[in-house]
């Protein structure tokens, strides 16, 4: 009875805290400009099925793809067991589904196999990050926190899975000893193998271990759930909407700026027509800070799992330039989170004298070749290139601060219709001589 009440309190607290955090992240994402994405619904669902659920883009690097599949599928399957744990916790029952008989053992044994797959994946991932030290996990933006974040997740998953195995193993022994509270289900496939570890322990000791593991696992899961939105691990939720809302057009397409077209048309018409009477704001050209990006850019930023596939395929980064697409995305996210916190504290009107340009330098932005390697690589369809291009637009159109050589090609294009200084009169010479 008491344990049921404790469980209910823990569960409700978990749900409340999680809901509040999700609301706050949603508010942060909504700091971005509005953007309507309601087109091509069947195509979007199909894309989500392939890329997010089907992990299509992971296959490009087969080893992490398989390991990630272990952890991804394993974690989902093992969590089916959560249903039973929740019912047991709330009602004080023990393994309520065991009434289904022999197939119960088969289910739990299968879950254990997936649990082992998760543990195997996590272990190799830890080795790749900390022992082999793969380059993409140690580049500059992978400071202490992002590195620790990844390790915390992997180690937590190892602990959670170990708890399930300990719980099942001790449960099996207690059943064999015909302990009253442990209905007969038979030993499970994997945990059965580690039973000898606990064989010498008294009934009381086993019951304590079993209960401890049960509570450790469920409280651990609740804590983990609430850790996720603070972590790179948030992709487990956001990958799905992020892929759904991702760009369907060819990668080569850039977003249009109708405000510029309007300005040019009124210039050509010789009118100095002001923005619509309705007081429509032109806003900034390009993006300087969080509010100049669309909500989709901000969702991209929160979805990033810092895997670094973008950066490791970026030609600028490969050749030692400062640009790292992952850093660009992380910088945007950190800035949104900071602003979100300040707005919560000081109200909607909060501004500071800083912008995203205090985190992302112009040197990084001007190193991009717009080659789309980053967008091609991202397993959750984040578009770092679009962030870079919006910031370039701000630099050029609001600040007139393009690199000198680019300014000269601008004036060449304007004056003689080519990036080089040649006369349009000579445009047909190539066919002669």
């Amino acid at each position: 009875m008491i344990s049921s009440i404790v469980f209910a309190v823990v569960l409700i607290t978990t749900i409340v805290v999680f809901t509040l955090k999700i609301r706050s992240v949603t508010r942060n994402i909504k700091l971005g400009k509005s953007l309507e994405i309601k087109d091509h619904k069947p195509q979007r669902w199909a894309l989500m099925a392939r890329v997010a659920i089907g992990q299509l883009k992971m296959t490009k690097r087969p080893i992490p793809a398989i390991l990630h599949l272990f952890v991804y599928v394993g974690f989902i399957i093992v969590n089916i067991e959560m249903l039973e744990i929740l019912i047991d916790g709330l009602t004080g029952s023990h393994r309520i589904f065991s009434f289904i008989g022999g197939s119960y053992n088969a289910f739990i044994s299968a879950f254990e196999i997936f649990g082992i797959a998760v543990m195997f994946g996590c272990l190799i991932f830890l080795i790749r990050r900390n022992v082999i030290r793969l380059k993409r996990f140690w580049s500059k933006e992978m400071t202490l926190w992002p590195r620790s974040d990844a390790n915390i997740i992997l180690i937590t998953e190892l602990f959670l899975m170990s708890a399930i195995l300990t719980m099942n193993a001790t449960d099996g022994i207690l059943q064999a000893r015909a302990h009253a509270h442990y209905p007969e289900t038979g030993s499970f496939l994997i945990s059965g193998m580690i039973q000898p570890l606990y064989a010498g322990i008294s009934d009381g000791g086993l019951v304590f271990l079993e209960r401890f593991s049960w509570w450790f696992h469920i409280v651990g899961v609740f804590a983990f759930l609430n850790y996720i939105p603070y972590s790179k691990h948030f992709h487990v939720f956001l990958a799905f909407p992020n892929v759904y809302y991702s760009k369907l057009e060819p990668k080569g397409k850039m977003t249009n700026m109708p405000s510029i077209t309007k300005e040019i048309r009124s210039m050509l018409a010789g009118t100095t027509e002001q923005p619509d009477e309705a007081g429509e704001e032109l806003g900034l050209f390009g993006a300087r800070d969080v509010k100049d990006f669309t909500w989709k850019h901000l969702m991209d930023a929160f979805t990033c799992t810092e895997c670094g596939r973008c950066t490791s395929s970026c030609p600028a980064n490969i050749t030692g330039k400062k640009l790292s697409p992952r850093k660009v995305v992380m910088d945007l996210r950190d800035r949104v989170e900071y602003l979100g916190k300040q707005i919560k504290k000081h109200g909607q009107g909060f501004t500071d004298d800083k912008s995203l340009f205090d985190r992302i330098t112009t040197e990084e932005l001007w190193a991009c070749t717009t080659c789309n390697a980053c967008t091609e690589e991202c397993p959750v369809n984040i578009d770092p290139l679009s962030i870079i291009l919006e910031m370039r637009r701000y630099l050029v159109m609001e600040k007139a601060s393009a690199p000198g050589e680019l300014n000269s090609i601008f004036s060449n294009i304007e004056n003689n219709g080519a990036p080089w200084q040649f006369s349009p009169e000579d445009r047909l010479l190539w066919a002669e001589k």
Partner: protein
Amino acid sequence: MENKESIKVPVMADLASRGETPEYLFWVGCAGAFDDRYKKVARAFARVLNHLDISYAVLGKEESCTGDPARRAGNEMLFQMQALSNISVLDGYGVKKILTICPHCYNIFKNDYPDLGGKYEVVNYTVFIQEQIKKGKLKIDSAKFKNSRITYHDPCYLGRANGIYDAPREILKAIPSSLIEMKRNRNSALCCGAGGGQMFKEAEEGHKEIFIERIEEAIETGADIVATACPFCMTMLTDGIKYKNKEEKMKNYDLAELIVQALDL
């Protein structure tokens, strides 16, 4: 090796004055018009068009920059001014189909111009040539490259930007020769380093130039020809070959040039 004679290239304004409308507008691009190396590619493709007796014309003096380098460098204002004025020229001639050699021109016509009202059927020359081969109109049974090992460098604006990976390879397969892939190819291909306005500026500080990283990969394949399909890639990779002192061992040709050479056009 190159045929130095002048090429008869029909000009849109001349055709219009005779009341004729060609099927295609051949958009030459700034590099085709002004870059000494890439002019040869424009010439090569015009020879292919003439050889196939295609109904086409160029804009000549009326052609202007599409605005691509401006747009990718953040200058939307300049891009749109260029685009709107180009669209009015194109629409003035009733252009329906545009043939491009430069992938940057191709991309911007195909993907960016429609937002501004410029809607055309845009065909990249690699796709065009491949179709001609498929239809049996272009036969390349020449032994010219029989002993050549050719590697193909995917331009970002054909490949990742627009998903054109097969047409250029099909063309190379149609020319008797051996095609070898670089380690990073198709959607994993490494950029030459020139896109997004980089062509016109010094690279930011790093430990290596991108074009050197790329040409090293091409050299690793043991190819004697690196085939390109973009004027900027051509500039970068030709520079790379020079930088690596491999001018004797490796040549850089555009796909159109390979066809012209194979067929002795």
